């Protein structure tokens, strides 16, 4: 079927389910019937954004994360009892947390705990990393988070990267990391960094870590690729970790001098609005960033403050 408009994840999932019923579920030992009734994140009227700032010396990042979710109405608003939740941190690089190349493990730990408290049946942490996954798991601290909280850390093995139709404007069939399409709820927990081509890497760009295959070719049309992927994965929530951000030498960094401490977390259900707010931390206007502009154009969300419920929490 030819289509020149972005289709919903629900539609694409139905098609996948038809072609490869049961593939994805089997791998993780859950029901092969895909839970396709995921709520579509940002509808026009209930867009919200919560910004949490840790202004006091020695504030606890986990505490701030909990406060931010509280302000959004609690995790129970988004994660229901018995849900399978997939969390997508950015752990692309085998770097220690201090270097701000990867999502802060304390943020991820708090999110996992909140999901479990909200009654999630299973929490999976997954990322198709750039560096070797085993080293990324260990050095970013995410492996430790999984061990501590009892979440599953999904190794990006070949059988979990299945070709699926993305039906994007630019991207058609790509290998998709199945934990993200077969979860009931998907939470995107990226870190904010600078990037040589897309200027910034925030929430929507984090979905490059959700696919496999010839990822390095995505750079030839990076902004549209990002939007296509964000459209496909369509997370329930996006929580941008900007406690430490990378301000230069991104996205890999490698030196503490590449890092600035911002003590900020941005949570929202509108991927465009969340990214737009995070771009502000780097002194960019939303329309200066290609994928934010395109995200608005294709209707993923809006950086227009009108109709956006905004809250601020401080610690």
């Amino acid at each position: 079927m030819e289509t020149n408009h972005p289709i919903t994840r629900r539609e694409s999932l139905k098609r996948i389910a038809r072609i490869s019923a049961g593939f994805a579920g089997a791998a993780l030992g859950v029901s092969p019937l895909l839970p396709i009734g995921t709520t579509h994140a940002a509808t026009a009227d209930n867009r919200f954004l919560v910004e949490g700032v840790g202004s006091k010396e020695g504030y606890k990042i986990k505490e701030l994360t909990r406060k931010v979710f509280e302000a959004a109405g609690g995790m129970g608003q988004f994660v229901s009892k018995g849900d399978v939740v997939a969390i997508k941190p950015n752990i692309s690089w085998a770097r220690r947390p201090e270097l701000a190349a990867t999502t802060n493990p304390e943020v991820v730990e708090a999110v996992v705990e909140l999901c479990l408290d909200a009654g999630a049946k299973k929490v999976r942490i997954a990322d198709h990393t750039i560096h070797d996954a085993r080293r990324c798991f260990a050095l970013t601290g995410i492996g430790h988070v999984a061990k501590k909280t009892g979440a599953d850390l999904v190794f990006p093995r070949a059988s979990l990267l299945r070709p699926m139709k993305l039906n994007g404007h630019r991207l058609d069939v790509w290998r998709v990391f199945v934990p993200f399409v077969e979860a009931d709820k998907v939470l995107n927990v990226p870190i904010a960094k600078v990037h040589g081509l897309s200027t910034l890497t925030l929430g929507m760009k984090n979905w490059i870590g959700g696919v496999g295959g010839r990822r390095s070719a995505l750079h030839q049309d990076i902004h549209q690729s990002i939007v296509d992927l964000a459209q496909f994965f369509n997370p329930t929530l996006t929580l941008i970790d900007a406690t430490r951000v990378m301000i230069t030498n991104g996205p890999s960094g490698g030196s503490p001098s590449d890092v600035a401490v911002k003590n900020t977390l941005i949570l929202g259900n509108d991927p465009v609005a969340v990214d737009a707010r995070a771009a502000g931390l780097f002194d960019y206007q939303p329309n200066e960033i290609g994928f934010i502009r395109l995200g608005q154009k294709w209707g993923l969300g809006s950086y227009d403050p009108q109709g956006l419920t905004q809250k601020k929490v401080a610690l």
Partner: protein
Amino acid sequence: MRAKHLVWIRRISQTAFLGFFLFLLVESRLPEDVYLQYSLIFSGDLDLRLDHPVKFFFQLDPLVWLSSLLSGHRLIHGFGWALGLLVVTLFLGRVFCSFICPLGTIHHIAGSVKPALKGDRMIQANQKTPGQRIKYFLLITVLMTALITPNLVGLIDPISLLFRSLALAILPGTGLGLKEIFDVMAASDIKTLNYLSYAAEVIVSPVFGYGYPVYKTGWFIGLIFLVILFLNRIRPRFWCRILCPLGALLGIFSRFTLLRLEKDEAACTDCKLCSRSCQGAASPMPSQTWENAECLSCFNCFDACPEGALSFKFRWAPKSNRRPDMGRRAVLGGLAAGISLPFLTKLDGTEHHVSDPRLIRPPGALPERDFLQLCQRCGLCMKACPTNVINPTLGEAGLAGFWTPHLIMVQGYCEYTCTLCGSVCPTGAIEEITAREKIERPIIIGSAYVDRGRCLPWSGNGPCIVCQEVCPTSPKAIYLSKQVIPGPNSSPVEVNAPYVDLKRCNGCGICEYKCPVRGRPAIRVIAAGESRSIQNQILLTGPVS
């Protein structure tokens, strides 16, 4: 002790050591669940290491110790095990060969389970032959060569040979075979088969390697191993009797063994059952003279004799022990070959003239000459490498460096803070370094250059910057500069063109690995600039006035 018991003790010991060897072999890689506590790593560097003593069998191998000492003048870490083994051999003979050696056990199995020869033909095959002198010839050749450099012991040392064959050929080959079966199952219409195929990968990949590693020349390594196994059909334990240099070394050390085969000629009925089951072709029959240097102390003859004419006893009788039958020709031939071989290896000019640009050694590798004095070509670094970048050489390092490790950047890359290869190297040919040392010293393994004709931005074929994105140094060794280049239809286009700053590049190769231009990437790494060499440099180094 009764003979039956001794044989069973031997079998249990063989099984245990073979099992231990295979366990360490499988564990010679990062596990999936390697965790570091993030409160510890948050601002400090912790190096990932393997949990198991994967070097153990190399430390136990006296040939590895001796050749490293002769060639590299180094005592390798843990060499006490090897010395202990030599002391044991002095008293008990070649017990290593029949109780411990995993390759010996594999040959033992291959030669005893459904043997190719029956009855008299087996007795004939188990008679001592002059061919058994070849192993002394090989031992002298490799030790003499090692004394001069390079150290070629690892090509035929049984532990190195077995590890290399299993790690680089048999395991990956089996893993790939299984993967193909699973792929067929996954494509099947039967749902149960689909499920099974997914579950199977979870079980299979920790054993056969994450991401199904492959190794250049792996087919050749595997073929040689299969041929050596096949030789058991000509003579049982063909390798151990005729070719194994470690067997030869231990044979020499068993000159004064106290554990002796005592024969009672009067009780012998000449049934030849002892000879039929003899593993070492060591002339166990009472009518022959026992060859203590050939005897593997397997106790088969003791067990087989129905008349009680044979028994193993402890006795100090150096006079009745035989000298190892090396033969003058094997000794002189070995010396001659050992002197010629080092010079033959210099003829390809890799040592003094031009080194191959593809010869990128693992991080921490010693300068080439020192490296070749220590490297056992065992493949442990290649097995341990998480990105599968380390591969055996074919011709890149010349004859002297055949099957030594080098990095193929289209197959993987050297991860910026990974120092695993040095931590597993049994001889220290690759130094054990920390991530901090690797970055701060710095350890440079090569240098990258851009092929502008193939590079997407440089050739006007579109934006890219992947090499700059993945460059791990801070500041990045690959930087972008806005350039106006002629695009299609002669219209000028502005691109972000990548450049390499050689002062910062450490040659890790992630740029080459991740470059979207397949086949021959548009950015490539060559060995020039490697910090281990004084000569193989590009830039003028030293302080700037």
